[in-house]
């Protein structure tokens, strides 16, 4: 009497069915991959349970500063980005004025400028303002201590508006893109309804269009917030002590890795909490009118004064975020390019391009595989591990690098395989950090196009591989392309993670820019900086076209 003979045949057949759909090569690989990508984040979270040696000290002294500075910076940048992004999106979608077509795509250009390069473009802004304040300071020194304190406080606080301005000028396109998509998809129907109910066009914007666009605006704002917290170059330059600065300082200054990771995990939880809160606040209301036929939108024609104001309103963010930095970097580059452009520089470009391209390929493939396995096999554990795998985006790149360093250090210890300093580790770290970026368009593309087709394919008894290759991939082509471009752009612009993990003598354009600037060769750094921008412009404009083309 074997153990197995206890079970009747019926049970076996259902178990086999279970086996087919729960555990097979595909699902196991998917689960393994998802958990592997989650591993560094797990390391970060695990440090929450470890009381680090310096935690009390951190709490008493600097944690408040990190929190305060981060909050001020994020709040200010988000506010300014939303203001610029939403107003421009509205003008460009719903109004008709000369130059509207040009501005519609041009407003996206600042996306090509990484935050640290924007900071270099404005590197002396704070210094110039301070110099203007010198007479005030000299006068204040002769005044009472309270007055002097106030003036000093004022001087100290200047860094916030300057940093906020610099960051918002290159981050507003996130809000702009999403708000624009929302406004143009709302269609004219609801606007007309509001007008027949007695609302003037301007009121219609605030009472109808804006509330309907809320999820899009919030999504854009959360992207802005995450990019702000991720930045290392700009905040370091202007002296704002965000969480990222604190994480670096605790890790390297106090030599306390677990303390740094604890800060990082707090940050991660905070961000996740915000996202959950927003979801909850939305409860019940739906925001898209997908069942409505999309009628061509009848634009509101602006008179000469209105047109002038509209053009001005759109040109301001564009000027700050793109035209001025480009002009500045360009004039520096013209005077220094002979020094910089040599054979090794072209190698640099090659490194950057190939790294970004190969990583994009890897990440898009991983995202497709994971999304497919999750949907095709309808396995809840895969879907859960997928959700975990995309968490890497919610922490700054520096933290991902540190976590990957720990993980590969462990592997090194136990297996003797040296992974740190290899391209494999770097690409893996990119995977951990940017999986979410590729995941989002691919998953929603699969949701829209492939769901019922997978079921049809399953009922026709074809294998998962056939379904993936013949059914899903062809339909997903636009999503795959968009995902690849997004990841490519993000990797080309990435700095802190690459700085920490780059292999032996492997430089990219962003690391070279940072190195030159940290040696106070700001003018020379403009050449690699410009290269980054120029190389990313094309994908940015491309992506913009894709987003506009959506009906």
């Amino acid at each position, binding site marked *: 009497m074997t153990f197995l003979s206890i079970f009747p045949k019926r049970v076996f057949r259902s178990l086999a069915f279970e086996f087919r759909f729960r555990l097979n090569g595909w699902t196991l690989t998917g689960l393994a991959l998802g958990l592997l990508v989650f591993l560094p984040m797990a390391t970060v979270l695990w440090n929450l349970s470890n009381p680090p040696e310096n935690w009390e000290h951190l709490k008493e002294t600097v944690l408040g500063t990190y929190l305060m500075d981060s909050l001020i910076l994020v709040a200010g940048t988000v506010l300014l980005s939303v203001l610029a992004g939403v107003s421009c999106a509205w003008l460009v979608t719903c109004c008709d004025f000369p130059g509207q077509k040009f501005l519609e795509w041009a407003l996206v250009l600042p996306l090509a400028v990484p935050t640290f390069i924007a900071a270099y473009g404005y590197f002396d802004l704070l*210094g110039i303002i301070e110099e203007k304040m010198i007479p005030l300071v000299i006068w204040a020194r002769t005044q009472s201590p309270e007055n002097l304190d106030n003036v000093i406080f004022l001087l100290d606080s200047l860094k916030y508006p300057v940093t906020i301005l610099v960051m918002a000028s290159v981050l507003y396109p996130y809000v702009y893109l999403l708000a624009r998509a929302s406004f143009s998809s709302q269609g004219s129907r609801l606007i007309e309804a509001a007008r027949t109910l007695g609302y003037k066009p301007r009121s219609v914007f605030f009472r109808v269009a804006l509330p309907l666009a809320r999820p899009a605006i919030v999504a854009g704002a959360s992207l802005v917030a995450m990019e702000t917290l991720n930045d290392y170059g700009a905040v370091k330059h202007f002296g704002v002590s965000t969480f990222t600065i604190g994480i670096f300082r605790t890790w*390297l200054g106090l030599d306390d890795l677990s303390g740094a990771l604890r800060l990082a995990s707090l940050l991660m939880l905070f961000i996740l909490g915000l996202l959950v809160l927003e979801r909850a606040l939305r409860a019940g209301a739906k925001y898209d009118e997908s069942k409505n036929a999309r009628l061509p939108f009848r634009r509101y024609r602006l008179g000469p004064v209105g047109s002038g104001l509209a053009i001005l309103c759109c040109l301001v963010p564009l000027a700050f975020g793109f035209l001025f930095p480009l002009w500045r970097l360009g004039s520096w580059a013209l005077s220094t390019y002979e020094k910089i452009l040599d054979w090794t520089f072209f190698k640099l470009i090659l490194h950057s391009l190939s790294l970004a391209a190969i990583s994009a390929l890897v990440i898009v493939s991983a995202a497709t595989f994971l999304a497919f396995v999750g949907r095709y096999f309808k396995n809840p554990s895969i879907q859960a591990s997928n959700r975990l795998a995309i968490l890497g985006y919610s922490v700054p790149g520096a933290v991902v690098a540190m976590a990957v360093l720990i993980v590969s250090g462990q592997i090194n210890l136990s297996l003797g395989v040296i992974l740190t300093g290899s391209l494999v580790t770097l690409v893996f770290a990119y995977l951990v950090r940017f999986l979410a970026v590729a995941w989002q368009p691919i998953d929603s593309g699969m949701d829209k196009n492939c769901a019922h087709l997978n079921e049809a394919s399953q009922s026709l008894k074809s294998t998962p591989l056939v379904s993936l290759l013949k059914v899903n991939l062809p339909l997903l082509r636009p999503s795959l392309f968009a995902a690849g471009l997004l990841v490519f752009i993000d990797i080309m612009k990435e700095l802190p993670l690459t700085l920490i993990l780059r292999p032996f003598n492997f430089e990219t354009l962003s690391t070279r820019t940072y*190195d030159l600037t940290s040696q106070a060769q700001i003018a020379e750094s403009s050449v690699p900086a410009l290269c980054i921008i120029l190389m990313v412009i094309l994908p940015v404009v491309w992506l913009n076209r894709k987003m506009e083309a959506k009906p």
Partner: protein
Amino acid sequence: MTLLRLCLNSQKPTYCYPMRPLLTLFLFLNASFCAMAAEINVYSHRHYDSDAILFAKFTKETGIKVNVIKGSADQLIQRLISEGKNSPADVLLTVDAGRLHRAKEAGILQPVQSEKLQENVPLAMRDPEGNWYGLTVRARVLVYAKGRVKPSELSTYEDLASSKWRARLTVRSSSNIYNQSLLASIIEANGAEKALDWAKAVRKNMVRAPRGSDRDQARAVASGLADVAIMNTYYLGILANSTTEADREVARKVGVFFPNQKGRGAHVNVSGGGVTSSSKNKEGAIRFLEFLTSPESQKTFGEVNYEYPVKIENNRSSLLKSWGTFKPDGVNLSILGSRNAEAVRTFDRAGWE
């Protein structure tokens, strides 16, 4: 290699034939030995032009190729720790003794002894056990606005805490290792409590929140925003010899003052290096350090990068001479490392960002 040529050039008598397998074996061993002797991997925080010149010279003289990976010392140390015994690094170069000490504590450096090294580097400028050796010296001095401050008003670091300097100082961020080492030396000299009071008072005396590099502090002094700044000597040299007129102007407008001359001496730090414990080419690494501490190399450091040689009295650079001689703080620089974490915590408590 030469043996091969000899063998081939010979008439190839019949008795050479059985030698062939032996020859190949010998060649293989020779080749791998050459390969091992042929290069060293250097993890360096230094990013100065002088280094490129010297490394090339070293390769020319010894035939050993120098592969450099640049990064901040902190990240390089983390990398070395993570890589462990499989790390390809042979030498670690930093710009601060504190980090060298930390590297030693982390076990990534190994003690090495060499006559030349002990001859070239004074005891205070190297690890007593030979884990690291100083290569150049930099002093952390006070620079003051020539028109507005008389040298007689300056005396010590500690004096900067007095209220007469209210809203007249500017110093860079405490995240920078030079400041951390300075505070470490103050903690060593005056004790933790006094050091905390000092840091608090100096922060209060700053005209603006810490930001920018040492050179930015000098520029602030020249522009009139501040009257006194703390900075490293070699940056002043870089400013004085800059290609931009504005920088040279800044250098002209500020004066150099070596503090604590009546006491323990001005705070000095070394840029130094050590052989990693995972090094596969220990010999080459030692030769490299010896080369860098040799008098010729020391001269190059002075001329190209305005750094003092490890034996300060050997200084040949006229610019450095123009600042005057000074008494350096004679404490062994290992304490800069051992008190580093405490210094950072002190800065945190003082609110010095």
